[in-house]
């Protein structure tokens, strides 16, 4: 279809595009190459099929904003199909009379696909552009107080506009082009929409010329766009797949990387500069589509704090866009991460709840960047909220962040006949009590209730007693990794001597640390939550629930470290149901649970400045559920919700699952 002159020009233009694209990709690769560590391509090979599968219905986008994600899916399908379409069009342009995939059934189906997807793509795109530019929803931008690269606010809009216009012109011209061809050559049953459009210009003398114009618009634009791509957030179409292919294997979204303090050669701990983040963390900036979903689910952002995980990734990306060439050449950034990517107050506002990691449709992990920055602040600069000192000192000296000494660690068990490991050295299950029952009144009630349940069911268990030390979770999330290192090694030594068959714990933070993070220190244990054990005991008939007890309306607050970090949502509910309660669910439940506000070390410090407490926000949701009672599964959630209830003057009863189960069993006595 193309004239010889056109063929030559197109060929030269393609060469120029390839060259420019190659330079842009090279720059990009060198930028990412400045990060620490290595990318594990073996993982990519292993995951290839499952990632290709993910690209079919883009499941991770549907975590949130379902309608919008549907429109996006149609656009994505159109884009993916158009890789074939563009190839076919170029071939048809160069080879006279050539019909890509032939005139038969296969060719027909191909053209039908192109026709339908073209229309759905255009319609969906117009809907999304309408949403972004006319409706201007607040969840596509961030508050004015958020630290955002000065070019980003208008830059994101400009990027969307450029890409939107490009796609409309590219796809639209192609669509017009097909209609011109049909107008010249006759109806195509396999292209109903293009055929319908073609009726407008049947018999027009300019059709042949129009065909050429359409070709150059469609494919010429592609060449321009490919060169623009590496600077656009739309490069996520490649980087999201790479992100899913190359993310290191993790036992949980919250399993942090180990720093080996025995390695004398290490000079830098944590990340204060952008090149101290790992390659996969730098890649996050390229995968980020700037959709602000992570910000939408962030408990800190939602309560008016300065933290926005989205802004962090966007700032990294804009740094690469603006100063990436120098960075790629080996120059260091003249600003630290605290200065350009995320302010200090925002770093300390994070509750490490993992919602941002869980919701991200392109597999980004902003939380890990924040915790790496914390490590650098604590270990390199000795700069952290002063209130952490008490918790750190407590964990260092008495192995309990509240400073309660080992001699008082078992006081909660007075009168209950709780066997220690000395009395029962080979139990069926080890109960890791955790530090909370040693100090907090509410946690004591939970522990005592669970102890009674274990006795009732005749479980052969033991606790470590005074030998139990803090798992160090608070130290790790606060950035004090050296303290965590000491505690982890110490605990692993004790536990490996005890050799427990299984461990049950009443604290999800202990569960997470023991199960997911201790393996890196030589400790591999099967760890379950106390609700899971109660569930087992009920199934074995060892606990007799009272089905005739008065039915209570209860809502259950999923602890972040139980549900999001460890996928345990089912057993707490089935255990509660067995206790004859009517569960009314909150909207933000299971993996969508909203943090109580205690994680990330926040339990030990004053909350950063914001509009309201994270716990107050969550408690309002509890009240709105209409429940009379709140069930929790974590001593920290318990502390936060009890305080929030007091602040709100609320009569809502707050109990741990163990307490509720025990009350139900005892009600038939």
């Amino acid at each position: 279809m193309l004239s010889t002159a056109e063929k030559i020009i197109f060929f030269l233009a393609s060469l120029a595009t390839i060259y420019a694209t190659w330079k842009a990709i090279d720059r990009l690769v060198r930028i990412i190459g400045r990060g620490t560590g290595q990318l594990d391509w073996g993982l990519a090979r292993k995951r290839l099929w499952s990632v290709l599968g993910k690209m079919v219905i883009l499941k991770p986008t549907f975590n949130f904003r379902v309608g919008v994600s549907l429109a996006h899916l149609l656009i994505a399908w159109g884009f993916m199909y158009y890789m074939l379409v563009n190839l076919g069009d170029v071939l048809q342009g160069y080879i006279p009379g050539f019909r890509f995939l032939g005139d038969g059934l296969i060719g027909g189906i191909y053209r039908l696909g192109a026709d339908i997807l073209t229309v759905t793509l255009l319609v969906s795109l117009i809907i999304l552009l309408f949403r972004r530019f006319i409706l201007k929803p607040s969840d596509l931008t961030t508050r004015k107080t958020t630290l955002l690269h000065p070019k980003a606010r208008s830059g994101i809009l400009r990027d969307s506009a450029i890409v939107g216009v490009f796609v409309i012109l590219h796809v639209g011209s192609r669509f017009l082009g097909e209609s011109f061809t049909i107008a010249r050559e006759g109806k195509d049953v396999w292209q109903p929409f293009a055929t319908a459009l073609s009726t407008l210009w049947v018999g027009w003398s300019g059709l042949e010329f129009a065909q050429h114009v359409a070709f150059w618009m469609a494919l010429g634009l592609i060449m321009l766009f490919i060169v623009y791509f590496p600077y656009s957030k739309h490069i996520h179409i490649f980087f999201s797949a790479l992100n899913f292919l190359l993310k290191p294997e993790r036992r949980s979204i919250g399993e942090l990387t180990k720093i080996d303090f025995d390695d004398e050669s290490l000079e830098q701990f944590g990340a204060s500069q952008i090149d101290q983040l790992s390659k996969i963390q730098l890649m996050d900036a390229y995968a980020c589509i700037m959709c602000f979903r992570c910000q939408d689910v962030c408990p800190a952002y939602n309560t008016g704090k300065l933290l926005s995980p989205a802004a962090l990734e966007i700032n990294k990306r804009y740094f690469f866009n603006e100063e990436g060439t120098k960075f790629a050449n080996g120059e260091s950034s003249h600003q630290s991460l605290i200065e350009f990517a995320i302010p200090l107050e925002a770093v300390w506002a994070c509750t490490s709840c993992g919602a941002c990691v869980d919701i991200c449709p392109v597999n980004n992990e902003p939380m890990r960047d924040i915790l790496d920055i914390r490590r650098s602040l604590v270990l390199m600069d000795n700069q952290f909220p002063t209130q952490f000192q008490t918790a750190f000192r407590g964990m260092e000296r008495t192995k309990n962040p509240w400073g309660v000494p080992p001699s008082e660690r078992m006081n909660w068990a007075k009168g209950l006949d709780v066997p220690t490991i000395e009395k029962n050295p080979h139990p069926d299950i080890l109960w890791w009590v955790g530090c909370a029952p040693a100090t907090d009144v509410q946690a004591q009630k939970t522990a005592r209730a669970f102890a009674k349940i274990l006795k009732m069911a005749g479980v052969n268990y033991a606790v470590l007693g005074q030998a139990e030390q803090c798992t160090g979770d608070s130290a790790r999330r606060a950035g004090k990794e050296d303290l965590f290192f000491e505690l982890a090694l110490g605990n692993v030594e004790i536990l490996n001597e005890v050799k427990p068959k299984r461990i049950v714990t009443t604290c999800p933070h202990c569960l997470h640390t023991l199960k997911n993070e201790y393996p890196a220190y030589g400790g591999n244990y099967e760890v379950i939550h106390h609700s899971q054990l109660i569930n087992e005991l009920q199934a074995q008939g060892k606990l007799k629930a009272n089905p005739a007890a008065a039915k209570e309306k209860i809502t259950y607050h999923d602890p972040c470290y139980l549900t999001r970090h460890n996928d345990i949502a089912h057993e707490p509910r089935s255990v509660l149901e067995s206790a004859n309660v009517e569960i009314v669910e909150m909207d933000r439940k299971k993996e969508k649970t909203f943090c109580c506000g205690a994680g990330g070390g926040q339990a030990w410090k004053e909350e950063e400045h914001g509009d309201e407490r994270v716990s107050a926000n969550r408690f309002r949701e509890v009240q709105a559920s209409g429940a009379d009672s709140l069930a929790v599964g974590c001593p920290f959630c318990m502390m936060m919700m009890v305080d929030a209830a007091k602040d709100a003057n609320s009569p809502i009863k707050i109990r741990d699952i163990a307490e509720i189960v025990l009350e139900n069993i005892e009600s038939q006595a």
Partner: protein
Amino acid sequence: MKIIVFVKQVPDSTAIVSIENGQVSWGDAPLIINPWDEIAVEAALLQREEVEGEVIVVSMGPESAKEALKHALAMGCNQAILIGDESLKNTDSQVVAQVLAAVVKKVGEVDLAVFGKQSIDGEAGVVAAQVARLLKWPMLSMVSAVKKIEPGKTIQVERVVEVGRQVVEARLPVVMNVGKEFAEPRYPSFMGIRKASKAEIPIWTLADLGIAPILSKVKWLDLTAPPQPEVNTEIISGSSPEEIANKLVEKILAEKIL
């Protein structure tokens, strides 16, 4: 300006102390730097930030006292010295004072000797004053702030007295001890801890100090623990403050306290 600060390693404040075989025992409670001495180290470091100088931290004790010295090094002290000698077990405060005064003389050209208010195990609280007497230096006690310091010349401090604060001035060198009003001790940085853990701490014996073993003048004749009270804690709960108060009153009457 040379500043010397003295620290002692003591059992953690939550340790349960008992008497075993006529000796005080704190079980396996961890040993820590005396909290008052930690404040003294902070005070010394703050003076070093005011005027150029170095801070030398010294402890008299067994090998384990090196941990307290390392803590002080991690906070930022320039040098550490351990005074260890077989004859220095279970001494009274005037022996300690004579040894520490000898240390100050041996280090030489010291402008300021800083002590914590007292140790949390012995709690005698007199060593600082005894050292001052032996050195014939002014003793500035209960210091809550250093207002002015001119190396080689004078120091002006604020002291805590019952009725308020008193400002006094003295010619350097002086001995001073500090209470918690002075400052919150800085948390030792990780990098500091790392450097300190590798530090080589010299041990000086009495021979190095050029003094002969000194006899204690105080003898401990007997050591007994007070009888352990039986403590039962019961937390009274209820659905309202009134209900809790009623329950409490019932219990008070039942126990015949009133």
